[in-house]
């Protein structure tokens, strides 16, 4: 069995190699794995482009998204073979003569805000309560679990729809054209799932030796929660947020499509589909184009989310 015994020289070179190789943290490792995932990178690229369009909508969009041109309504996009074209509107115009391209571009802004703001709220509430409930336990944990049982009995969308429908005509529903109410509705419904996820993580982590060691050496509870438990529970949280953002965007589209989301004339993809749907069979493009945009953005987020999950936690399946 001579092959197994390594010579002293070989042993030294392996050790030297180990010492000189740059240490990589979990996060660098994950980023390295994510970068090799082509679909995830494509998703990230599309999301970056969407964010770029959203931030610079004012400069990029050729026209005001709400300006009506009564002389050129229902124009077809340039590739459609018909007589209804206007050289001004590349992707055509809707029933009220508004430029579809500009409306599509401005919609990215609402989508991005609706994706990010409720998710940030959900993150801060969900992580805090999940950490505390999981670590401290007791009545707080009991209360959280009973509360989540109730929220789980509602399908998410059903609950969001009830909140939107009933509070729409209050002062809250009027803030920023219905945007604030969407934030509230989505945050109220979604923080529960994240809190439960973090709690589960903490329950399994707090039995581990490193937490016991921290406790034994007298690290204060607050510091254990923030410095020890939180970073170790972060990976699944990031994955769940990567799916929460498109979920929130989709909820906005569905609500606006049903007519209880963002108020017209603000341009969002859902509002565009809602407004165009009544004349869908005569002029399909004002509906089809935003539908295509929603599909592309949703696919981009799924690619990125799947990639993040594979990169951050190889044990997680599906």
């Amino acid at each position, binding site marked *: 069995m001579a092959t197994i015994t390594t010579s002293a020289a070989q042993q030294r070179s392996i050790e030297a190699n180990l010492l000189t190789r740059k240490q990589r943290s979990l996060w660098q490792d994950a980023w390295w794995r994510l970068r090799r995932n082509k679909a995830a990178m494509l998703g990230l690229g599309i999301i970056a482009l969407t964010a770029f369009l959203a931030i610079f909508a004012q400069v990029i969009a050729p026209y005001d998204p709400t300006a009506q041109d009564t002389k050129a309504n229902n124009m077809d996009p340039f590739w459609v073979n018909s007589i209804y074209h206007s050289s001004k509107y590349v992707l055509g115009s809707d029933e009220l003569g508004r430029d579809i391209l500009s409306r599509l571009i401005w919609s990215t802004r609402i989508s991005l805000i609706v994706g990010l703001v409720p998710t940030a709220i959900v993150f801060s509430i969900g992580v805090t309560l999940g950490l505390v409930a999981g670590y401290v336990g007791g009545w707080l944990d009991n209360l959280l679990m009973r509360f989540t*049982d*109730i929220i*789980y*009995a*509602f*399908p*998410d*969308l*059903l609950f969001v*729809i*009830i*909140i939107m*429908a*009933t*509070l*729409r*005509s*209050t002062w809250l529903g009027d803030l920023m054209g219905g945007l604030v109410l969407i934030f509230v509705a989505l945050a109220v419904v979604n923080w529960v799932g994240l809190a439960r996820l973090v709690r589960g993580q903490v329950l399994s982590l707090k039995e581990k030796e490193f937490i016991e060691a921290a406790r034994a050496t007298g690290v204060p509870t607050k510091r254990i929660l923030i410095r020890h438990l939180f970073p170790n529970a972060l990976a699944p949280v990031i994955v769940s947020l990567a799916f929460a953002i498109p979920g929130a965007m*989709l909820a906005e*589209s*569905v609500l606006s*499509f*049903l*007519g*209880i989301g963002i108020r017209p004339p603000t341009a969002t993809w859902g509002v565009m*589909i809602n407004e165009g749907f009544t004349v*869908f*069979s005569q002029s*399909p493009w004002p*509906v*089809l184009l935003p*539908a295509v945009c*929603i*599909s592309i953005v*949703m*696919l981009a*987020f*799924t690619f990125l989310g*799947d990639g993040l999950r594979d990169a951050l936690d190889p044990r997680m*399946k*599906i």
Partner: protein
Amino acid sequence: MLQYTIRRLLLIIPTMFFVALITFALAHSAPGSPFEKNENRPLPQATIDRLNRLYNIDKPMPEQFVLFLGNAIRLDFGPSLTHDRAVTDIIGQGFPVSAQLGVQALLLSLAIALPLGVVSALKQNTVIDYGSLFFATVGYTIPSFVIAIFAIYIFAVNLRMLPIIGWGDIRHMILPTVILALGPAAVLTRITRASMLEAIRQDYVRTARSKGLREQVVIVTHVMKNAMIPVATIVGPVTAGLITGSFIIEQLFSVPGVGRLYVTSILGRDYPVIMATTLLYAFLIMIANITVDIVYGILDPRIKVGK
């Protein structure tokens, strides 16, 4: 097991109570009376007062809630505010339609997902596998109302093969059923594939092979039987998804079910209908989840559900 089942069934009562409380509080926090809708032709104050009295809206909120609960237990949700009929009647008429649509979609999604998931796991990293993964990703990602828009454009507007709206003969059911089934089918395909792959790598499968069982027997009795357990658990959330998916699809295709009734009652602020449909949905979802948990316990005796 029996104790667990009873406990879960009893837990329905407080949960339903809180669902009712939350919905009730929300519905009644909306400003204005439901009878002040038409601003151009306002109802005389005396009429509004009489209507409020008729529907108990003049009473203080807690009393209204108690009255509501008392009636709801007897499945009496009063008359609808927009249709001149009892809420229970309207729901009773829409429910069979929604149930038919839901069951059809569930069966169709299982019929697509199980073979697809099993085959793609057995032929991992082949064209079939990539094809089914592509289907699963697209079906899971693209929302059903967007798929519905594309489907209506292709099959109803362009090809004129299928009617867009209505309900009755089989041609009306094709598009709503297929589109409603796509999302659940995609989720189930992903789960089936992943759980088959997990089961194939287990030691007992290698044992079964090494003792010379035929490949077919190994796959069917050892791999598939165990792989179906996680699939069974996901049927609960999938059913919930079918229910929420149904009201967008029913609205899009004008299917006269509970889903569309729910959306129109929301838009018309018909509170008795909103309350009744919400409670119905919450009840169905809880029953679906409990059934799945119990089935899970029976399928896999290692799971201690009682804890």
